[in-house]
């Protein structure tokens, strides 16, 4: 072998600054360190949310005890004690709050049950709705985005971009109302086959076959309206990222290597283009947990969104406080997951 350089000439000789030195590869260790750091910043955000949540409810107008009284039996002495607590200095109240940030013993004024029990009852329904719609939106949205972006300017691209732009601009509750009109009440030639209102037929046990079928049947319309709007979001972002990647030099390299079109797309373009969409998906999940309010309200779907709406209507402050905390935590957590997933895919993030 005619070595162009003395044998042993290596990175050091080539790169006197030494910044090209290659760390021993350890994807897991790198991600572990990254996750640790990310967890710390997540905790910091959480602390801020806890403090903010306290002052937010301090600023609300009205007398919190007025509602509290109406919801359940309460003796005059207890009421006086609560009143005294409300009138104690702010720092004292804050101290009491921060001792028990989750407010485990606080009761919902509308349901007369501990707030976390109320949330736990509604959560599974939200998770079913969210899981179904997210799955549909990501799979269909990403597929459309890849195909449209890779064949930019094609008929498929033009049609799908037109449709997704329309869906993107559509409010999901309006779409929900239309779906109810066409497929729930039935209208003109459209059969009203899907139920709306509630998440399961009355009196059915969710752990039976009939119950599961009923749940699935009830999920179709609300999940479809959520999925339609979010899939538009994902496909538009995915398409834009694909188009960005099309002109990249490494795709020219891949083409020159003699790879099939499909291998270039799947092996090189899509992994690079998917990074922004993946971030968006996880961020959205965090928000939809609290943000499906309009859809759940339109469909009277008994998830966290409807619960929030009812709590606002009835000034159920303890429940609202717990819900806000829960929503904030879900946003923080999914934000964190998004960062970690991206770091696992893109080595440049793990620096």
């Amino acid at each position, binding site marked *: 072998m005619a070595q*162009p350089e003395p044998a042993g000439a290596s*990175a050091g000789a080539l790169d006197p600054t030494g910044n090209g030195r290659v760390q021993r590869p350890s994807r897991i260790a790198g991600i572990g360190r990254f996750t640790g750091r990310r967890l710390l910043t997540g905790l910091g955000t959480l602390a801020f949310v806890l403090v903010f949540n306290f002052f937010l409810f301090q600023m609300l107008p009205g007398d919190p005890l007025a509602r509290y009284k109406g919801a359940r039996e309460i003796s005059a002495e207890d009421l006086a004690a609560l009143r005294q607590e409300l009138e104690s200095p702010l720092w004292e109240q804050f101290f009491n709050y921060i001792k028990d940030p989750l407010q485990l013993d606080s009761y919902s004024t509308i349901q007369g049950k501990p707030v976390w029990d109320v949330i736990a009852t509604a959560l599974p329904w939200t998770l079913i709705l969210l899981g179904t719609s997210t799955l549909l939106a990501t799979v269909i949205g990403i597929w459309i985005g890849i195909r449209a972006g890779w064949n930019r300017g094609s008929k498929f691209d033009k049609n799908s971009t037109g449709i997704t732009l329309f869906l993107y601009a559509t409010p999901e509750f309006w779409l929900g109302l239309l779906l109810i009109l066409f497929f729930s009440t039935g209208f003109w030639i459209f059969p009203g086959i899907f139920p709306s209102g509630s998440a399961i037929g009355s009196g059915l046990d969710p752990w039976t076959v009939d119950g599961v079928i009923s749940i699935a049947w009830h999920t179709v319309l609300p999940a479809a309206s959520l999925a339609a709007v979010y899939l538009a979001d994902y496909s538009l972002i995915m398409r834009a990222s694909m188009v960005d990647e099309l002109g990249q*030099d490494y795709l020219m*390299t891949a083409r020159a290597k*003699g790879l099939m079109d499909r291998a270039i797309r799947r092996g090189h373009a899509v992994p*690079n283009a998917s990074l922004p969409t993946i971030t968006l998906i996880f961020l959205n999940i965090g928000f939809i947990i609290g943000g499906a309010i309009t859809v759940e309200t339109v469909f009277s779907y008994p998830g966290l969104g409807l619960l929030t709406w009812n709590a606002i209507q009835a000034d159920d402050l303890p429940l609202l406080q717990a819900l806000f905390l829960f929503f904030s935590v879900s946003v923080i957590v999914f934000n964190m997951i998004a960062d970690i997933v991206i770091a696992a895919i893109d*080595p440049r993030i793990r620096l």
Partner: protein
Amino acid sequence: MAVLDMRDVSLTYHPAEGPVPAVRHVNLSVDAGEVVGVAGESGCGKSTLISTVLRLYPKSATVDGEVLVDGENVFDMKWNRMRAVRWGEAAVVFQGALHSLNPIQRIGKQLVEPILVHEKGATEASAMKKVRELLDQVGLPTRHVNAYPHQLSGGQKQRIMIALALTCDPKVLLCDEPTTALDVMVQAQILDLLKGIARERAMGMLIISHDLSVLSSNCDRIAIMYAGQVVEQGPALDLFQNPAHPYTRALMGAFPTIGDGESRYAPTGLPGDPPFPGDLPSGCSFHPRCPMATDECRTVDVVLEPIAPGRDAACIHVNQGVGAP
């Protein structure tokens, strides 16, 4: 025998504004073991010329003429055959300083990929073994198979690009500005490496550069391109010592001569810009910038004609002896 033979090759892009003839009637051949350089300003069609060999130009572009890789015209190939020729017969050394490597894939995986595609019976393990040997040959430690592109310096990435081009033992190596954006010390190392590899493997090598000093010391023959045409070609040394075409001379004048202190302070540039290929001047494309231009140059189409043994130039004044060496 020529491993790469371009015969009357033309390529025209078709943007909405109208046709752009980026390469016009180029004849160029590269023998096995020979290093041929193509020089010219940015936008003269050098990179487009390379793209014709593996048909890497956009689908909308139209081509004419023949590009024979090892005797087979690539313009006539079916896509399956074309894909086999890509990297198997002819490979490209892209600019490593650009994002020519996939940023989120390990180097090893990217180098193994063409071997698995092109070599029958290659396994992940056998391909990786070959990749390690290649890294060693280009002077990189084999542990770099586990690195990501962003962990390497520009010079290291350029070596990776060379190793990548060698993975399937091509007969033709096309080097697209292989040393641009590298510092001068690393440039010299990369060029030595390329030259060594071409000689040792008896490959035909085509180097494209805007940097004449890069080509002068490394090529057997050189072609000078202007506005999509070859305006002069000949043996490297001869061409550098006695440039015939006024454009070649202007290019030479723009580079200071090492050892000649005067030239460092008085590089003679060439006023004006190369013409836009979609809007070429009549007659000789170079006449608006040519110090020797006459009325005849504005009307007569110039073609490449022999001016001495092994030398061709496309200039009526050279042919008439006015600018002859």
